[in-house]
């Protein structure tokens, strides 16, 4: 594989709340390669969205990035000033939002909202070229050029999300973050929107991070999956490996809980609930729910280790097969 465009290195993010520090992300590291599609999955509160938002530095209010680095082809995003970061947004890292229904300004025409992006980054083309450029963007995501003259309320949910994708690729960014981009849409539209996202991403050669908990969607769309649990990356491997030979007990149970069309059997969940991030359990955060937990699990946090080529697991069960200590 080629050089990574994005390197996330031991990212720690805490939320300051009245009840205390919520340790939302605890040392997440991964690489994202050019043109790659990486999926981040996990339960609600596992830190997947927080990680994605940290990359574009959109964390608000009580969230603090305590430690770590986010390198976007040589630039440490966490070291940039607010205004420098503003210039990076959508130009080098863009985002397809979660709430497609309300992500567009209701009182502005689509044309103006796309124009805003060019203007904010000092890349406003000449008047004569702008309309053509916007029309081209819209056709690329499967919309008619006339959509440019419409207001958001005149579009369907799927069309709005396509507009959002068109905006996300307007400045040809290197990385596109998609935080559950289709959770507000029905399955048919979901599929169309994901195909559109996939197509433009391939044309652009941009890398995509898809955040979500829809394993079916992940299986269809991404190349690699990172499984998150209680603010940690517990497994990072290709889609095939995750689905065929999951290694971490949490991933195994996660895959085991996906209903099977061929076999008729009882629906299986993972017993217990996710731990409180205010006061996480000692050692491996999954050990209270893990059927295979043994002594070291309660004591040390297992680091992410490569157990097979480009297959990374954070679990004490795989201690013997250690090769490297850094994710790739």
């Amino acid at each position: 594989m080629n050089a990574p465009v994005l390197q996330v290195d031991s990212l720690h993010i805490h939320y300051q709340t009245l009840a205390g520090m919520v340790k939302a992300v605890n040392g997440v590291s991964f690489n994202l390669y050019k043109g790659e599609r990486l999926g981040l999955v996990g339960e609600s509160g596992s830190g997947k969205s927080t990680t994605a938002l940290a990359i574009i530095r959109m964390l608000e209010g009580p969230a603090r990035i305590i430690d770590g680095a986010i390198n976007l082809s040589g630039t440490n995003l966490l070291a940039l000033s607010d205004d420098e970061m503003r210039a990076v947004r959508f130009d080098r890292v863009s985002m397809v939002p979660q709430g497609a229904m309300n992500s567009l300004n209701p009182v502005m025409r689509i044309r103006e909202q796309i124009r805003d992006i060019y203007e904010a980054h000092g890349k406003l083309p000449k008047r004569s070229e702008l309309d053509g450029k916007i029309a081209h963007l819209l056709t690329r995501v499967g919309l008619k050029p006339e959509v440019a003259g419409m207001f958001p309320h005149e579009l369907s949910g799927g069309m709005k999300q396509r507009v959002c994708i068109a905006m996300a690729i307007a400045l040809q960014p290197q990385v596109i973050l998609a935080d559950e981009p289709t959770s507000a849409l029905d399955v048919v539209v979901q599929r169309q929107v994901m195909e559109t996202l996939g197509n433009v991403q391939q044309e652009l050669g941009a890398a995509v991070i898809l955040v979500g908990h829809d394993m079916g969607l992940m299986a269809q769309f991404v190349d690699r999956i990172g499984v998150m649990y209680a603010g940690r990356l517990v497994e990072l491997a290709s889609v095939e490996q995750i689905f065929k030979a999951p290694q971490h007990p949490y991933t195994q149970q996660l895959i085991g809980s996906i209903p099977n069309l061929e076999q008729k059997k009882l629906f299986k969940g993972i017993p217990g609930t996710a731990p409180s991030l205010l006061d996480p359990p000692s050692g491996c955060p999954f050990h209270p729910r893990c059927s295979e937990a043994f002594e070291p699990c309660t004591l040390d946090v297992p680091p992410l280790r490569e157990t097979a080529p480009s297959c990374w697991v954070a679990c004490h069960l795989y201690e013997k097969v250690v090769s490297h200590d850094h994710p790739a």
Partner: protein
Amino acid sequence: MNLQYVIRRTGVFILVVVLAVTVNFMIPRLIPGDPIEEKLSQLTATSSGNLVTGIEEMAAAYRTQFGLDRPLVEQYVNYWRDILRLDFGYSLSNYPETVSNSISAALPWTVFLVGTSTLISFVIGSLLGGLLAWPRIPRVLRGLIPVLMVISAVPYFLLGIILIYLFVIVNRIFPAGGAYTFGSTLHWDLESLGDILHHAFLPGMSIVVAGIGAWALNMRGMMISVLGEDFITLAKAKGLREKRIFLWYGLRNGLLPQLTTLALTLGYVVSGSILVEVIFSYPGIGYKLYQAIQTKDFFVVQGIVLVLIVSIGFALYVLDLVYPLIDPRIQYDVR
């Protein structure tokens, strides 16, 4: 916007006016007391008995002159005929001045004073409210919120009295009342304009300051809910400059409900700010209305109320026609 809607909305406006005129005609006639006998008994009381004889004949003569001896239906028809000619009759207390003259002398002062102050109050208040909801403003500004709450709780006439005390009695900076220096004649020049502004400052201030609190607090509430919207998050993610997000994504949306209130408030402008005008003896409609009510001057009260109703109706009519241009989501489909 389509023509059919405009026609229908115009019809509603006319209906409102017709109903208002009818109610306006009926209500004063239901109030106990006879304005002519009231006036005459005042005269007899003040002229130590000289006019006691023939008072019944005088009352009858006046009733005939004002048309009050005719049947109600005929009075109503005549009333309409007069209104269409903008003839609201004579002022009962300042006879022989006509109501039209009375109103048209007072109306420009009120529109100038109350209209301008309302607009200033709206602009400053809304901007301030929008800023107060913005997360990245200095802490000092946030201290304004309780101040605004107190101000919005102080009635504007009380504020007027305080202003008179501070700037007329303690420091003689501003005149105590009137719209211009008494006895001077007005010309279209800077000197007259300066004089008018000098006189309008204190009453205007009391309206502006008293209004700001409410505009700002309303706008702040509106803006807070707008800033929580997904499109604000995306605007930020797009890398837009703060000013652009604040004005065109935040304020532009938060302002929509404020505009409805503004249209209504502007409609009420023609009624003046009664107490402010009375306190500052400002020769506007409010002052006129106050005097007319005191002297049971039917026709002046009716005239002013009619102007008020028509202008509120008109303000809402214009708002309804203009709203689709301000908020594209509003559309009028006539089925």
